[in-house]
Structure formats: structure tokens, C-alpha cells
């Protein structure tokens, strides 16, 4: 188990490293606009700012040297922006709890709702309850989070004032305020996922319920409740757990980008969106690297958890 975890984290490090190279190539070497001009203040650079930027960033050095220097500054958190961006690493680390709260809460709601509704579907398989829930689930994932977030923010919190329209309160300071600020973002992000999960979990549970050993367990007199909880759910949730894991790690570069912008949450998604809009290259590369680390780290953690739940996955994957 520990060996698996170490292997998985090692692979994650390699992935993050390759991602950092790609980010460097993409933003440092590819722009055919002279990067010195960009660094010298958007498109308005002149020869003076160009000379200053070239010296400040050492743009005449060989690329590997520039790469190492840039990554060092990114990991130290001392990125030189032309516009002020302070210590980006500190900002990022402070913003991370907001995003983790958003993603974890949305994930719990999506998974809880998905499993609960899927269980109802399985119990009433083929009857109207099943049809109603699967139809509602299809409808739920047909409403994109973007639209849901925009409408909930605009009407429920901004126009009707039922929830705060902006800002964030730390869980430590006030659990009630924390939940109030995050409730609508949770709903907006979770509903489409919950809809999709109903389908995934339902299909997987139906597969499990049809297995011979379920019939055997029932025949030997297990109560239906115990059968579902101890046997069917444990096996039937293995395929969905893999999907949840990947969705969880992807969320850090997915819906948080626009949900945080819309709800004015000071998380990493909003930070990234604002930085990208500024077209300031060093912090863009820095945020790409930070987010890559977060995504890769969480997907490794999730993989380890899944492997702990299902020992069959601990063996090195047959070359897929």
C-alpha cells in the first residue's frame, strides 16, 4: 500500500514537471510577439521598457537557464510581475481553502444526492419513480453550471438578497456565515454532477444487483437493508468512485474558474481568471504551475484512497 502511494505520488511529480515545461514553452517561447514587449506592459512596450524587461528577466539567456530561473521564482513565490502581484504563492495558498471548501461541499452534495436518488431508482426499478428520477437527472445535467451559477447569483442573491452576493467567511470564524456564502455556489456546481452521478451509480448498482452472489445472500436470509448497505453498495460503488475521484481533482481547474468569478469568492479560480485576463505572463505561468500541482496532487491522493478501498487496483496497471 505504501509502495503504491509512493509510486503514485512520484508519477504525479513527473506529470507536474512536464506540465511546467509545457506552460513555459507555451507562454515563454511561443508568443511571436516579443515577450519583452509583453512583459514591458501589455502591448504598450517601447525600446526602453524592452531593455529593462530583457535585463530584469534575463531574456537573452539560454532557454533552459530561463526555465530554471522562472521555476525557482515560482516555487519561492517571488514572481516579478510588471504589474503588482505581491507574493503570488502566499495569495494562492490563502485562496486555496476557499476553493477546497467549494469543491468539497459541492462534491459531497453531488455524491450524496446521486447515490441516494440512484438507490431509490434501483429499489423501484422500471416503475414511475425510476423514470421520474432518471428524467430529472438528465434535465439536471443539461443545465450547465455556468448558467445555473449566473441565474442563482443574479436572482436569488443579487436581486432578492436571500444570500450574500459577494465575499467569503472562513469556517473557523463563523460556520453559519461560511455555509451561507457557499450555499448557492455549492448548488450551482453540484447539480449537473449529481444528475450525471444518478445515471452512473444507477447503472453500476443495477449491474451489481443482478449478480449471483446477491441472490445467494438474499436466499440465506440477509435483510434487504443489510444486503444493500454491506454488499451491494460496497461493490457497486467501485466504478463510480473512480469517476468521482477524477472529477474532484479536475474541479480545481474546472467549474471553480467561473463559479468563483460569478459569486465573487476569493478562491484560486477567481484568482486565475483575473490573472489570465491581465495578460501578465509570469503570474500566468506561475498559476498554471500551481494549479497543475494541485490537480495532480489531488488526483494522486484520490487514486491512493480508491486503491485502499479496492485492493485489486493496487497492482501496477497492466499496460493500458
Amino acid at each position, binding site marked *: 500500500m505504501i509502495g503504491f502511494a509512493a509510486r503514485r505520488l512520484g508519477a504525479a511529480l513527473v506529470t507536474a514537471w*512536464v506540465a511546467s515545461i509545457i506552460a513555459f514553452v507555451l507562454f515563454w517561447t511561443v*508568443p511571436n510577439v516579443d515577450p519583452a514587449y509583453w512583459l514591458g506592459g501589455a502591448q504598450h512596450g517601447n525600446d526602453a521598457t524592452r531593455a529593462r524587461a530583457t535585463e530584469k528577466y534575463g531574456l537573452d539567456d539560454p532557454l533552459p537557464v530561463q526555465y530554471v530561473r522562472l521555476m525557482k521564482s515560482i516555487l519561492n513565490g517571488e514572481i516579478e510581475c510588471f504589474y503588482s502581484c505581491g507574493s503570488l504563492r502566499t495569495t494562492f495558498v490563502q485562496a486555496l481553502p476557499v476553493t477546497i471548501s467549494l469543491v468539497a461541499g459541492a462534491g459531497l452534495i453531488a455524491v450524496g444526492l446521486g447515490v441516494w436518488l440512484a438507490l431509490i431508482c434501483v429499489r423501484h426499478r422500471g416503475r414511475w419513480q425510476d423514470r421520474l428520477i432518471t428524467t430529472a437527472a*438528465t434535465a439536471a445535467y443539461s443545465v*450547465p453550471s455556468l448558467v445555473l451559477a449566473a441565474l442563482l447569483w*443574479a436572482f436569488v442573491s443579487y*436581486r432578492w438578497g436571500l444570500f450574500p452576493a459577494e465575499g467569503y467567511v472562513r469556517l473557523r470564524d463563523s460556520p453559519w456565515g461560511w455555509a451561507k456564502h457557499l450555499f448557492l455556489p455549492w448548488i450551482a456546481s453540484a447539480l449537473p*454532477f449529481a444528475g450525471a452521478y444518478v445515471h452512473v451509480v444507477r447503472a453500476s448498482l443495477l449491474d451489481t444487483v443482478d449478480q449471483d452472489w446477491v441472490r445467494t445472500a438474499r436466499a440465506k436470509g440477509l435483510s434487504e437493508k443489510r444486503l444493500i448497505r454491506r454488499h451491494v453498495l460496497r461493490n457497486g460503488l467501485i466504478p463510480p468512485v473512480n469517476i468521482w475521484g477524477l472529477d474532484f481533482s479536475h474541479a480545481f481547474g474546472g467549474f471553480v474558474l467561473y463559479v468563483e468569478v460569478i459569486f465573487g469568492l476569493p478562491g484560486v479560480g477567481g484568482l486565475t481568471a483575473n490573472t*489570465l485576463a491581465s495578460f501578465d505572463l509570469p503570474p500566468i505561468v506561475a498559476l498554471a504551475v500551481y494549479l497543475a500541482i494541485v490537480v495532480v496532487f489531488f488526483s494522486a491522493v484520490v487514486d491512493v484512497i480508491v486503491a485502499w478501498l479496492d485492493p485489486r487496483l493496487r497492482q501496477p496497471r497492466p499496460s*493500458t
Partner: protein
Amino acid sequence: MSRGPWSLALRRLRTDRFALVFGILFALIVAAAIAAPLYASEVAHTTPSENHLTDQIVVDGEPTDVVSLEGIPIGPTWRGSYLLGADENGRDLAVRLLYGARATLVIGGGAVLLTLFLSIPLGLAAGYLGGRTDALISRLLDLLWSFPALLLGVLLSTAISLSGAQIGPVTIGSGSKLIPLVVIGLVYVPYMTRPLRGQAMALRGQPFVEAARAAGMRPLRLMAAELLPHLSATIVVVSTLLFVNAVVLEAALTFLGAGVNPPEPSLGVLIAAGLSEVVLSPHLLLVPSIALVLIVLSLTGLAEGVRRALDPRGKVNFDLVRGR
């Protein structure tokens, strides 16, 4: 007389009332989007980018400003001009909506075509040739796969807007509508290649492939003539599902300023603009939001129907909301 798999699938699709309703709805939306210029010139008598800040129209016998002196645009009139109201520049929202839907659908469809163009050779080569080719392609795609589509899209699109890109004979300048198309198409390559590779790998050991090889067929021809037809059902199913995601991803990218550039209309542009005007003119947010939901809903219903018809045993694995 035996029926081919396609006619069987078509028959299944025809009896699938759920899918039919959504299919017709989607066809109507596409028809409306295609007819956008016709609507603009014949019914609304304007263009999507024409401002009417000082115009007046007659509503219930009374002349009304299109944009009031306080800068509040007119709401839905439910008449030929300004059917769905105007925006803060006095532009006809219905016209902009049709053009926007057109842009969104073209970007989504074009992106899926680009994905297909890249994934089919990659998936076939990786699955059939195996070995080093497979290792190289799979590692590369796994790397892309491990990052969220939206983040990749935003970063790629920002990089392309900074520098422009040269792809063969096509030059993409910053601000071009081709940027979101190319970005979405590239980001979805692993989503399409994975299932194709898996199927090609499974088919490799089949007797008919061995027979073709024994008859001296070259790998390239074998992949195109023997393997590709077996993958067509998967290709159609995954393409329709990806189309849904591409439409949603366009809106999200544009919302973040990394897709279509305003004032050029697209659903993402209209939603972003509507959100900033929502206090005084809620119709500016509601109209494009409803339009996007209708497109996604009808397309999802159709895609699910296509999937039930072509893949009744549920062999194709596809995560519905990932990659948005």
C-alpha cells in the same frame, strides 16, 4: 432479409419518442440559427452589431425609446423588431441571439470535427500498432487527460491570443473565432482517442483482422478498411456527447474572456454581458441562458437517443459532465 446494424439503429431511434422530440427540437434550433440573416433582414430589419441608441419604436400606439434616457434598454416587445428586447446599445437581442447560437453551434461542431480528424488516426494507430507507438500516444494523451478541459482550454486560448498561431496554411490571429474552435477541438482529443484505442486493441486479435493481414493487407489500409467500420458506432456516439460538452465549454471559455470576443455574438458573450446588466434588464441574462439550456437539453436528449440506438449494451464509457 437481414438488416444492417445502421438500419437497425435507425429503427430503434425512430421508435424512441424521447429522442425524437429532442431531435426535432434541436433541428428547429439549428434551422433558426441558419436562418439568422434572413430573420435579421426580413423581420427585424437590423444586423447583430447595429446600434439603435436613439431610435424609437411604436409599442401599443405609443412611441417608445429603444434605450431610455437613463440607459435602460427596452424589454421583450413580442413583435417583429425587438422581439426579445434590446441590449444597452439598442441592438436587437433576438437577432444577436440567433447569430450567437449560430456561432456557438459552428464552434462546437467544428471542434468535434477537428477532434475526430486528430483522434481517429491516433486511436487506430495506438490501438492497432501497439508497442512504442501506443506508449508514446498514450503517455501524451494521459498527460492531457490528467488536466481539466476548462483549464487547458483557457491556458491554450490565452497563449494563442497572445501570439497568434500558424496551422498549415491557416493563420489564426488574436480575436479570431477559430481560437475557441481549435482549442476545444484539441482539448477533447483524449476524450475521443481513449475509447477508439480500446476498441482497436480489442479488434486486433479478431480472426478477420488476422485474415486481412494474412492476405497481405498493409497496416494503413487495414486500419481504414477493416477496423474503421467497426468503430463507427463508437465514433458517432462519442461525437454527439462531445458536441454537447463543446457547446458548454465554448460558453465557459468565452465567459472567462478566452473564447469568442465581444461584440461578436455567441451564447457565452451574451450570458457574460447579461450578467453585468442583470439589475436593470434581467431579460439580457434570461434569454441567452434559456437558449443555452434549450440547446444543451435537446442535444443531450438526442445524444442519449443515439447512444441507446447504437450502443444498446452500453459498451461505450463516457463521463457526461467531465470536460466542461
